[in-house]
């Protein structure tokens, strides 16, 4: 039973998501807002929700548009809802949707809300390009200039190179190190081989393909009708049924061409997509006639020094969440671990199983526990399915909850690494 001050339990009623599609492909004409609105709209219809019962919304997004910086509010302004639902957007990098879910969870737990929609969205086909610093200064100066003379003076300082746009990088602002470089570094420091990484990637594709073929994955996907026409999109388009270790072995490492092991095949791709999850206070759900799938048992966040091993946050967050749940890794019947890079997955697992990690980082004598690969990412992970930064947390929650119900598993774990050296973990408990 959930450990809680006032005994209010937070139920996951259900969720859905758009197909996750590689950036620049079939979803490229849809903004993140449009994707999030579509997923939420379908959530309303699938769960036959009366928009008026929703108290709040939280959505994650990592690279917001300058035109709609609060994505969540655009979603809560869908015509299926009254216009009076407050909404906030959050950014905890790859754990943004998880954080949105947690914010909703907390409001329900505190008694401030009974029904919350939380999720996330990202369109990496639609990233904002910025003017260079010099160009922006000149444009701002021009708009303030009072005389022709002032304007001419500003224009005289113009250089052609000022026109070069600045694209947001997937790099740590504090270290300048890109995600891939960090993963590469982790692979080397933890002795993770190229073969081991490719095996993780292969499993991801094979399991995602099986989950798509047998309909478990597609059940949570809402079809998208591309605005320009074309066939409806009903499944994730990065999953490769036909890939093999031999094929993957042919790829060149991206971040260290000479000694590297991280390739395009064993990393998650840039992806467009959105997810939405319906959370309710247990009693409210029953009053409205909804059957909870799982309850949130506990969660935790943590951070490490981003200049060290950037993606090791989960190895701190997971034991914290387990401790708060009063459970151990052994109690978990299913684990959904975000796969930013196979190198990160293997590094995290190594730490989970390491006595040294437990002693040095957690101040414990025993390791967190063995990771049973059979219950890890049973329908594949971000490497195959794709990773729209802001949305992935919603996918992990929905997939885990549904699969826990299918298998009758009592406890499930979510583990997510995030930019900035952060980690997120959540323990779900099957509703009786």
């Amino acid at each position, binding site marked *: 039973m959930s450990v809680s001050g006032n005994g209010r339990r937070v139920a996951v009623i259900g969720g859905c998501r758009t197909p996750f599609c590689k950036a620049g492909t079939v979803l490229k004409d849809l903004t993140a807002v449009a994707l999030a609105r579509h997923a939420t*709209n*379908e959530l309303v219809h*699938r769960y*036959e929700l*009366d928009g008026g019962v929703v108290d709040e919304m939280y959505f994650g997004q990592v690279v917001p548009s300058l035109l709609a910086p609060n994505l969540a509010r655009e979603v809560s302004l869908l*015509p299926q809802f009254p216009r009076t639902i407050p909404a906030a957007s959050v950014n905890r990098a790859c754990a943004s949707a998880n954080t949105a879910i947690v914010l909703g969870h907390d409001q329900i737990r505190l008694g401030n809300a009974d029904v919350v929609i939380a999720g996330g969205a990202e369109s990496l086909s639609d990233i904002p390009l910025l003017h260079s610093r010099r160009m922006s200064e000149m444009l701002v100066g021009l708009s303030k200039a009072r005389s022709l003379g002032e304007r001419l003076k500003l224009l005289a300082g113009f250089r052609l190179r000022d026109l070069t746009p600045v694209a947001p990088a997937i790099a740590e602002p504090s270290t300048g190190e890109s995600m891939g470089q960090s993963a590469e570094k982790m692979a080397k420091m933890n002795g993770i081989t190229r073969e081991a990484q490719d095996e993780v990637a292969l499993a991801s594709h094979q399991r995602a393909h099986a989950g798509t073929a047998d309909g478990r994955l597609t059940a949570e996907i809402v*079809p998208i009708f591309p605005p320009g026409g074309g066939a*409806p999109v009903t499944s994730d388009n990065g999953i490769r049924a036909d890939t093999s270790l031999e094929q993957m072995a042919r790829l060149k490492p991206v971040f260290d061409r000479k000694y590297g092991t991280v390739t395009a095949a064993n990393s998650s791709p840039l992806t467009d997509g959105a997810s939405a999850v319906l959370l309710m206070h247990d009693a409210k759900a029953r009053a409205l006639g909804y059957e909870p799938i799982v309850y949130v048992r506990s969660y935790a966040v943590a951070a490490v020094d981003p200049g060290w091993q950037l993606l090791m946050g989960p190895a701190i967050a997971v034991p914290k969440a387990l401790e708060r749940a009063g459970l151990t890794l052994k109690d978990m019947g299913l684990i959904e671990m975000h796969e930013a890079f196979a190198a990160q997955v293997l590094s995290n697992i190594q730490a989970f199983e390491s006595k040294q990690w437990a002693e040095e980082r957690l101040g414990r004598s025993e390791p967190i526990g063995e990771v049973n690969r059979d219950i890890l990412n049973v329908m594949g992970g971000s490497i195959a399915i794709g990773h729209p930064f802001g949305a992935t947390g919603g996918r992990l929650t929905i997939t885990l909850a549904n699969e826990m119900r299918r298998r009758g598993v009592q406890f499930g774990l979510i583990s997510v690494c995030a930019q900035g050296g952060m980690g997120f973990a959540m323990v779900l408990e099957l509703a009786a």
Partner: protein
Amino acid sequence: MSIFTTEIADGIARVVLDLPGEPVNKISRAVRDELDQLLTRLQGDSTVRAVILASGKPDTFIAGADIDEFTALTSRDQARELVQTGQALINRLGAIGKPVVAAIHGACLGGGLEAVLACAYRIATDDPKTKIGFPEVQLGIIPAAGGCQRLPRLIGARAALDIILQAKTLPAARAFRAGIVDELVHPAILDRVARDAAKRLADGWRPTRKRAGIAAFLLDNNALGRAVVFRTARKTVAKKTGGNYPAPVAAIRAIEHGLKHGLRAGLDMEAALFADLAVSEVSRELVGIFFASTALKKDPGVAGEAPPAHEVSRLGIVGAGFMGAGIGGTAVAHAHVDVRFRDADLPHVGNGLRAAQKILDDRRKRRRITKYEHQRLSALLTGGVDWAGFGRADLVVEAVFEDLDVKRDVFRQLEAHTRPETILASNTSTIPIGKIGEALERPERVLGMHFFSPVEKMPLLEVIVTERTAPWATVSAVAFGKRMGKTVVVVRDRPGFWVNRILAPYLGEAGRLVTEGVKIETIDAAMKHWGFPVGPIALMDEVGLDVGVKASKVLHDAFGDRFEPVGGLSKMVAEGRLGRKSGRGFYRYAGGKKQGVDESVYKIFGAPAESAKPIGDATTRLIFAMLNEAARALDEGVVRSARDGDIAAVFGIGFPPFRGGPLRLLDAIGAAEAVATLEQLTRDVGPRFTPAPVLVQMAKDNRRFHTST
């Protein structure tokens, strides 16, 4: 004095019109008399430097002249006198020696617009309720209290013709852009801005109005250019009205005469032309239609005490084909409801969503909705292949293939997937609603909603009720149809309902004329000349010959020989010549455009090689086929009243409005005369023209369908 209240402050008199006991302000005799005295007082009051004219009604400024006064007119002289009184009063608004400012919020139409045009300055609110225009031509008359004079003087002849001839009502923003009002303000500051303007005008300020562009210089501001404008307008009107509607022609004449010979002469011309029109049959019928459709808007759809309508805010649509998409798109565009489509597979759902979306896109293109409304409304369109969302629906419209078993299956599933109080409607045009719903547990919530294609354009909706349909369901479907912008008639569940029932004999007769060897062009031209917007043969091509044949089979099964299908039509369908949609019907089509008649049709119909004259008169045969069936159907209670039957014919088939509708036309002809004509046709052409028993009885009793004239 109780109609106007006047407050005087700072030398500004604020005159508020608030007609007691009426929902809207209209210019009646009492209003005219009181305003006349009021103006005299204000003219003589030296403390008053300027006047503001405002309304005390929340949603209207002045909705127009009192139509009851106008319909009571019995002679030209009375009509002329009425309009001259109005002219004199409105002239005074600009001639009391003090500026009058119009502060307009709400509808400002007809006589209301004529009054403000005589004011020195016009300020309108940017509220959606504020609408400005001249609807007169729709009623077969013209703006005759100076409207045909002052509007062209203010905004140019071309723009004025555009508004007056098309009976346009503009939103405030467009009236501002057109130059009809001088300022556009938020309602909260209307009064303040009006006071400021009144003070400035009193101090001698004169507004400078925008100089028009080159086109206006060439076309509006010189006699030669104007001659071109009027010639073009006359041509357009002649083409559009086929010479059946005299009002637009009169409006052109009044405007032209005034611009040539001055305001005084123009006003006299307006009055003279108005007097002719006001007592004409055309205007009488048009006013009749106006009253009937206004009454229908207030009609809940059931007799006696109507139960409250269930509010429809979520609509489910089964079948995302052409009709389903049209219904969904129109529902979103006008009623702003949540629409959920269901179809067998996702590509069909996607096509339906796109087709429905196009209705919103078109409204955006025509600036009927803003970018933001467009975005918001677009999110109301969703769909899938399962029943997700149907449990939320308040109303479901089924628009699947016309097959009883398919429809029954859909309704069985709907019963399982909807709440018990959800209204279940079929959009069938041929299948009895009672049969679709008979096996259901709750047939009382089943009815028909027969939309016409294309849904977003066709103004009529037939709500089909069975013996078992509950009044609450009827009332709710009628109310929702109105929210979709439709004129709704309640029709009994009889084969063909109303529109197709009376249309089928008419189209069948057209087919028989073709079989006899009458030229297709001749038939279509005759009916267009008579006043239909399209001829019967072209109409069959538009509707689809397969649809027509299917409908006539149903009617033949139900009513026998007089609905005997025309052999040529079935042969055309067998050859896949279905009309416009298949690119080939009676006419040929290329690139979506109608070309000439396909001469091979005559052979299919077994027509003689040489074109022949019809037996009897083609027009009489076509029209009486429809009139006779209308009389029968009304007698069977297919529609609830002659009013409903006429309105449905006008809005559903394009029956010429100036003829009032089939039943009004029968009244005008007289039952005895109609029976005589039908008997003649029976002898000359065939027994299908046997007069409806009700007509024979009415001829004996000297009765009419409509009680009032």
